[in-house]
């Protein structure tokens, strides 16, 4: 589904990603872990098309298409979803209008007719139930005045609405209490299927108790330095990242 080959990227002239290689197949869950500043969020941003980052080398293929050639909106229309670490508040844009515009833009791209207002609202209610988000939130402006936990739930809700092929969740667990974490993880698990894939970017192992990954990768200094099964996350939890840093030094 996703194939990243030797990806290098800069931010303001500084190289952050120094040759990433990653293969993600349908049905898989990959966790990307690593210390602060290792390039995790940069990788998520590059995949979603944030223009802040400059890709200098490498290739990203998604379902046979060169992802780096596509605009951010076309990547979303092709089925990529980025769950933001810091979801943006947009006062004055209602969640209903936001989601209706998004879904109909995606449908247009795929050659489908727009959803009628009533069908859309039915669909929205249904998805709100699936991810257990309070409909009070979905009737407000996008993220405006939401708590940290509510914003993250709203990311998962949007993911449920848009039904992506590949979801990239960037530190979705940060700032969540254990109950919110359970709800968010529950939403992700409900949306897992053999046709979709998930990349979970996280600093802590905690989230992986709820979203069990098939692979765990450690990103350090712009490279994936270790890949293993879910047991790697536990090892990292126990020992911290220092042993990886030391290994790298040697």
């Amino acid at each position, binding site marked *: 589904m996703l194939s990243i080959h030797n990806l290098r990227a800069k931010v303001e002239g500084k190289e952050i990603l120094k040759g990433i290689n990653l293969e993600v197949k349908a049905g898989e869950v990959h966790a990307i872990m690593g210390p602060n500043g290792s390039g995790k969020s940069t990788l998520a941003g590059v995949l*979603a*098309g*944030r*223009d802040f980052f400059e890709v200098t080398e490498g290739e990203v293929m998604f379902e046979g298409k060169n992802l780096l050639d596509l*605009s*951010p*909106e076309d*990547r*979303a*229309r092709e089925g990529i*979803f*980025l769950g*933001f670490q810091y*979801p*943006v508040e*947009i*006062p*004055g*844009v209602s969640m209903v*209008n*936001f*989601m209706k*515009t*998004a*879904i109909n*833009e*995606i449908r247009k*791209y795929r050659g489908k007719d727009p959803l009628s207002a009533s069908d859309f609202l039915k669909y929205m209610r249904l998805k709100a139930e699936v991810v257990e988000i309070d409909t009070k939130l979905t009737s407000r*402006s*996008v993220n405006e005045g939401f708590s940290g936990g509510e914003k993250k739930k709203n990311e998962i809700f*949007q993911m449920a609405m*848009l039904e992506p092929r590949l979801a990239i969740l960037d530190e979705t667990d940060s700032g969540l209490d254990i109950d919110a974490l359970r709800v968010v993880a529950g939403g992700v698990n409900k949306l897992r299927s053999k046709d979709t894939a998930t990349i979970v970017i996280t600093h802590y192992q905690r989230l992986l108790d709820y979203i069990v990954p098939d692979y765990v990768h450690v990103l350090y200094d712009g490279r994936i330095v270790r890949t293993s099964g879910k047991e790697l996350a536990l090892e990292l939890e126990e020992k911290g990242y220092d042993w990886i840093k030391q290994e790298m030094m040697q």
Partner: protein
Amino acid sequence: MEPNTALLGPDNDYLRLFDANRGKLTQSIPSFLVDLRKEAVESFRMLGIPGKKNENYRYIDLQTSFNNTFRKELQPKNITFNVEDIFRCDIPELDADVILVLNGIYYDTHRPMRELEGGILAGSLAEAFRLFPGIVEKHFGKYADHRKDGLVALNTALATDGFFLYVPDGIQMKKPIQVINLLMSDEPTFSQQRNLLVIGKGASVSLVVCDHTLSPEKFLSNNLTEVFAARDSRFEITRLQNEHNASTQVLSQFYMQEANSLVNNNTITLHGGMVRNNLYVQLNGEGAENNAYGLFITDQGQHVDNYTFVDHAVAHCNSNQLFKGVLDDYSSGAFNGRILVRKDSQKTVAYQKNNNLLLTSDARINTKPQLEIYADDVKCSHGAAVGQLDKQAMFYLQSRGIGRDEARLLLMNAFANEIIAKIQVEPIRERIAELVGKRLRGELSRCHNCTMHCC
């Protein structure tokens, strides 16, 4: 030349116009008004059309607009068409009493004064001069001072008609009144509308005003409205300015507010070549509140200029101003707002804000919020912001599959909605939201049923 019209030449001879028509301009009006007109002529002789050296008009070039050849109608022309045939406001849910004003002159000559529910009087100002000189004399020219502004002087000297509204004490009007100002002529036309609104004690009324140009000729209007809001009254006015690029509109509104009166003044400038809105508010009784909200959208070479002056003349009054502009292409705008809190006006609460969205690097806005506070126990703030669309928000929307153009529209509409949400007459709020949406989308923003291409 028809007897009731005069041509204004590039020599800008508005004074000669008065002299040539002195008889007509001073006949069948109360004697106090004859004197007032003469004084106003003298004021205009001194002041003239304000130029850019006038601090209050420094961002707008009105002299060039006034220096064109226009026809001035002093009395209604014989109208050879039926306005209702070409213009019928089609807001379906809006149940309002509708009044038409054509080129500044009250249109319904068969019924120049209407008595609505509760003894409300709505009609032609010229007719009010005749029927209710007592009410007129008490308020006319009392709030708009012709000695301070040449445009006020010009209107006071030459305006012959406009809209008159009188709401008796204690009357709560349920239906809004809709005033539709139409400009339509087959030659360049100068019009001056004069409106007088008197809202009685404890009375409540809502007014919707729409300004439209129905023919493509050059129009110049110098309109003036005086509003007296007696104690405990409530008044909401929503104005939609929708004129074409060859129009210049000056609108000066003067409010005198007594104790505990509440005025909400919403001005949506959807389209117009050059627009100047002057808003003067005097809060003259404790507990009075004035909320002024403005939204202007400009593109091409348009210019929209808002000037406000709020005078907290007594203690315990509230005022709140929020003006927002969306400027595209090489258009320009200005906000010049002044709040005056006098020495004894303690416990004043006054806010003023002007936020602008510049969509191109050629669009320009001059903003100048000013607070002058002479009391020491007040809560006041003012501020201005000029910016572009939020890049973070743009990316967030795009990352959900929304294309750049749609994302921009969502954000521009959100910016505008803060003002639209203040409008309390729901069908009007919905229509304005729709028109603003279309305007921002670059589609024609005239109402569906209006067959003329005014934009």
